[in-house]
């Protein structure tokens, strides 16, 4: 009899899982369909802004002393002599051929720049995200576990400081303290002086160095990433620790916790299964958004640590008023942001027991 029930239980679990996956995929499809017009809108917005706002990019590119025909040539090359809708149309056609236009800053196709610089940024953000998730979980759980006691108060004050200090201030502080005063970490760049960069395969220098078998280089790159990644992660870490704490404090007062406690379930199980898990759902949403917004803060941090990444490229492009570069940077950030949001939605849907059950 008991065995029979168990079989039914497993069966229903599998069925539920299938339904859940189906519901999630349907949801993802809907989200992707919703995101595409938004991204097209974003491209139109930034494209129009880059062409309409005052200032002559062709003149900027040619320099103040260039003869008139050079300026005209660059203007023609950038298609600035055509009407706006034609410019956008040709830009869109090029985009579908994988060409984001000519960069007046690097003097080559923007696509080449994106491919070259993006992996370095992504790998920095990946490490920062690891720091963020780990730190937020640790601090949030400590704070929630000892709510309204000394550890909680300390974490809360730390979290306020973490949120309020901008990432570039953390970057400068770390550079000053851990690179200049106590030379624990390198102060800038990706490789130590004299290190030979690994041959480019994936573009992610960490993976490339492993493929090439240069383990020393791998450690060296990782060593260079610690300070920027940590500076980048602190703000988001503090924010998420607060949200995890708030969720836990909220869940602790719920009736179901009193119920399982009355059943005599061990306190440890109550904590991990009935308090922690439900309070992580709202945190995941914010965490995903925060990881995606690391991409924005990376602009300053990469500048401080001279990290050869996409965000630093973005700054250089902006300071040089390279219109194709600016459009590409905004669009790439928008795409990454959209992907991150969809991933977050999937994770939340997976964690949330309500999704999929209704249809099952």
């Amino acid at each position, binding site marked *: 009899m008991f065995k029979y029930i168990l079989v039914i239980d497993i069966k229903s679990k599998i069925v539920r899982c299938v339904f859940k996956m189906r519901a999630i995929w349907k949801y993802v499809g809907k989200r992707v369909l919703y995101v595409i017009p938004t991204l097209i809108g974003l491209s139109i917005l930034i494209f129009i802004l880059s062409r309409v706002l005052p200032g002559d990019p062709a003149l900027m590119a040619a320099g103040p002393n260039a003869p008139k025909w050079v300026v005209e040539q660059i203007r023609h090359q950038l298609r600035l002599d055509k009407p706006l809708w034609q410019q956008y149309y040709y830009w869109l056609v090029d985009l579908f051929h994988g060409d984001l236009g000519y960069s007046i800053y690097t003097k080559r196709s923007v696509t080449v720049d994106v491919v070259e610089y993006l992996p370095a940024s992504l790998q920095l953000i990946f490490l920062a995200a690891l720091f963020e998730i780990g730190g937020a979980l640790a601090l949030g759980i400590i704070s929630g576990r000892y709510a309204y006691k000394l550890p909680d108060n300390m974490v809360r004050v730390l979290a306020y400081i973490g949120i309020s200090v901008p990432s570039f*201030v953390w970057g400068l502080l770390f550079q000053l303290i851990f690179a200049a*005063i106590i030379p624990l970490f390198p102060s800038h760049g990706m490789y130590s002086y004299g290190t030979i960069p690994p041959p480019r395969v994936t573009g992610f220098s960490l993976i490339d160095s492993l493929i090439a078998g240069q383990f020393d280089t791998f450690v060296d790159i990782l060593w260079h990433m610690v300070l920027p990644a940590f500076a980048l992660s602190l703000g988001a870490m503090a924010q998420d620790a607060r949200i995890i704490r708030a969720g836990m404090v909220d869940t602790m007062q719920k009736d179901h916790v009193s119920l399982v406690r009355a059943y005599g379930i061990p306190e440890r199980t109550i904590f991990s299964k009935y308090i922690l898990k439900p309070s992580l759902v709202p945190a995941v949403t914010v965490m995903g958004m925060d990881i995606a917004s690391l991409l924005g*803060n990376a602009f300053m941090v990469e500048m401080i640590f001279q990290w050869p990444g996409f965000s630093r490229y973005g700054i250089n492009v902006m300071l040089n008023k390279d219109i194709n570069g600016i459009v590409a940077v*905004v669009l790439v950030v928008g795409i990454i942001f959209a992907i991150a949001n969809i991933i977050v939605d999937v994770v939340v849907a997976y964690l949330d027991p309500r999704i999929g059950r209704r249809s099952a």
Partner: protein
Amino acid sequence: MSRATILSEWWKTLEIKKKWYNFRRSPLSLIGLIISLSTVILAIFAPWIAPYPEHAGFYTDFEHANLPPSWQHLFGTDEFGRDVLSRTIFGFRYSLMMAAVVLTLVVPAGVILGLIAGYYRERWIGKLIMRISDIFIAVPPLVLALSVCSLLTPSAFNAMMAVSLMWWPWYTRLLYNITSSIKEEYFVYAAKVTGASSAHIMFKEIFPNAMGAVLTKITLDVGWVILLGASLSFVGLGAQPPTPDLGTMVSDGAKFLPDYWWISMFPALAISYIILGFNLLGDGIKDAFEG
């Protein structure tokens, strides 16, 4: 009904006395209030409080350049011999002005758009407004603000415009959510039945219910806007030197970092101080309204 009575009615719905009682109980909120008030006072009375007010703009005194912190110059002097403390106090002015200008531009625009979008949720106008606000939210505000600033000529004024352009969708979304949930309430129907105009329903029936949320968001946003402004000028796309803007001062001083740390570190701490103050204040007000 005159404007004054509308304002006083809005004011009454806030129940300030009760909120103040809630607010006062938390020491962190009071610290936030003190910090924010201190920055506001420093900013307003900067020319009288700063020890060397003439150092705020163009000023060179190479004899006293790069002096470490001392009793004459509490925060030291920068590469042109200007007193860092005086410039930091003047820097509060630019940070607070940024927040004030951005929020006065953004809040009314975002609130009105959000009310319209929520009230006409099923019509094309509501959908259009929300889709446009989605576009602005599709990228971290910093990235879009940076690119708009770079396309304009970098200056403090253009930085304010760029941040304002990025910020309204958050208020639109807030008001959209509140409006679309409230518009099904009976008092809204009652107003409709008595023949009230749409504008009356939006501003006199629905908006007072959103006041607390908007006010909370404004105080929480002050810190974020200051952070965004400081980031813009740190990158070099905001206020230009010799403006005593905190972000610009940090990035200028960063060039001299390990040796002359005081040039960039004190403005950096000042940015953190002002943001910390407004974050604490905002959270205190939020708790007071919810509790």
